[in-house]
């Protein structure tokens, strides 16, 4: 927009309605495409695996008749794309088939296992965000001095120490020796099944039911695995925050803010950090999404009934419905979080609007 004075005025860059519609259609197609790709790849992989799904169901003592019956019922005589379309059809009707290991529908299994992972991943990510970001900022602001070195060492530990070792040591010290925290599992057995699983997230359910005893116990069980996982996301988030912050503090608009007489606190948090946040959103989204895949090692060490160990056990038991269903849910989470961070990014960065 140039008027005769050669001025370009900043005007609303809000997309006009057809534009916005096109953006929406674009997003919709992205979702559909990602969904088709995700399901197709996992489906094909699960079918070409040298696993006999019929045998996994009927066992090796069944007669040929029973075998054939099940073979037909599963539609295995059809070409693979027909099988795929059937799978998609029932998936769209909320049916992921039945799990062999648990004898339950995969849907109900996921409703049981996924919230456990969600709980752990969310608490770990919150820890990473609320501790990792300030650590990274402090390190950048004190570049080369001791706070920077401390953060660097913590980051290094978070990267290089194996989870299962750290997990076992933590259990040994804080649970077995000191008795400060709960042990493996989500809650002590005698609290099991006390609260109705509305959401499946035990902390929420306990709080909703007002069962504070259960809540406290669940927290004491969650602390160790969440801290452990949190340390890893914290290390990553702190490292990235530090480098983004150093980059921003070297920019000229920071000098401008200082020239204006703005306090150092505001220079860092009001000016530099807003720009760091733009870059951090993607990083945080990625960490969260990767934690939602379920971390098999942590779930195993802490006997945490999460989606990661569910999928892994399914794999070992030739339970392809469980593997396929779990993978699709995890993939959907990944796509969802990516889209969410995209939306947030647009909200925070005016250049992306």
């Amino acid at each position: 927009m140039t008027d005769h004075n050669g001025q370009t005025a900043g005007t609303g860059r809000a997309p006009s309605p057809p534009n916005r519609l096109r953006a929406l259609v674009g997003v919709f197609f992205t979702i559909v495409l990602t969904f088709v790709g995700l399901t197709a790849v996992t489906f094909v992989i699960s079918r070409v695996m040298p696993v006999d799904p019929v045998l996994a169901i009927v066992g090796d003592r069944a007669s040929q008749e029973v075998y054939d019956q099940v073979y037909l019922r599963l539609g295995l005589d059809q070409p693979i794309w027909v099988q795929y379309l059937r799978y998609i059809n029932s998936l769209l009707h909320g049916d992921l088939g039945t799990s062999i290991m648990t004898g339950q529908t995969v849907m109900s299994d996921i409703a049981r296992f996924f919230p456990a992972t969600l709980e752990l991943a969310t608490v770990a990510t919150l820890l990473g965000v609320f501790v990792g970001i300030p650590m990274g900022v402090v390190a950048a602001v004190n570049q080369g001095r001791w706070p920077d070195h401390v953060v660097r060492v913590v980051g290094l530990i978070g990267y290089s120490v194996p989870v299962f070792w750290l997990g076992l040591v933590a259990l040994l010290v804080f649970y077995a020796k000191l008795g400060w925290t709960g042990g493996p599992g989500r809650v002590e057995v005698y609290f099991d099944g006390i609260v109705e699983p509305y959401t499946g997230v035990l902390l929420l359910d306990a709080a909703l039911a007002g069962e504070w005893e259960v809540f406290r116990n669940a927290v004491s069980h969650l602390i160790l695995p969440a801290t452990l996982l949190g340390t890893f996301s914290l290390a990553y988030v702190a490292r990235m925050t530090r480098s983004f912050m150093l980059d921003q503090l070297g920019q000229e608009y920071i000098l401008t803010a200082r020239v204006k007489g703005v306090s150092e606190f505001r220079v860092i948090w009001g000016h530099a950090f807003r720009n760091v946040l733009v870059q951090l959103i993607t990083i945080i989204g990625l960490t969260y999404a990767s934690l939602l895949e379920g971390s098999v090692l942590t779930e195993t060490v802490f006997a945490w009934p999460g989606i990661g160990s569910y999928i892994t056990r399914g794999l070992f038991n030739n339970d392809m419905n469980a593997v396929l269903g779990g993978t699709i849910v995890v993939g959907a989470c990944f796509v969802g979080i990516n889209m969410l961070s995209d939306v947030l990014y647009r909200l925070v960065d005016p250049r992306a609007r």
Partner: protein
Amino acid sequence: MASSDRLLQVHNLSVSFDTPRGEVNAVRGISFDLGREKLGIVGESGSGKSQTGRAILGLTGPGSRVTADRLEFDGINLLNADQATLRRVRGARISMIMQDPKFSLNPVMSVGRQIEEAYLVHTRANRREARERTLSMLASVQIRNPERVYDAYPHEVSGGMGQRVMIAMMMIPEPDIIIADEPTSALDVTVQLQVLAILDDMVSRRGMGLMFISHDLNLVASFCDRVLVMYAGRVVEVCEASQLHHAQHPYTRGLIGCLPSVSHPHEVLAVLDRDPEWATAPSAADP
């Protein structure tokens, strides 16, 4: 110049940096006074112009060392001042306009908020008053649509408009001194003149002192009252702007010789010869 008019007194100012490759002396013992006038500072790239400006604001950055026999503004010793005192001086009393609004404005903050902040830092005004002042400030740097520009983000404004925004931001607390570090180098020629006219108008109307840093000898000669020529961290010549073309120092003469001229076109432009002696000779004294 009457001593009461001396807003800023600089005596034997040096700025050096500790770098992995040893000490870099950016400014090496320069002296000058600044009154309510337009003082031009010229010199080639790396001669220490920007660091001189930043040293006055205490913003030479990490790893820098600033020394001076005197660095005084309105009775305040800027060299030993604590951070709180410096912050009260920055923006409110001495301000600085930088080269390129593309980099010197915060990309995720609206233009209006950034200007407003410069005002709010130094006053007890509320947001509504600040907004009104910002809008009138935008109007006084000849922005026709202050409301619209107020809500714009830096990437939505042109270079010339961005530099006006920068001027508005640095003028809003009504400082006594403005340091303009190549304020028009990033703009195209027609816009340069507009922005200069605005700067000139505001500085003269409010009777401020202006330190105008530039590469452009002709521009400085016509725009400023007095000119300081820097070379390798030293002041090699000080003269009235009108006398610049009769300057004595061989470096200044060399710089002038390098300028293309329309009235006397040269086949080949002169190349500046440097005498190592210029770098070691004592700085020119303030007249």
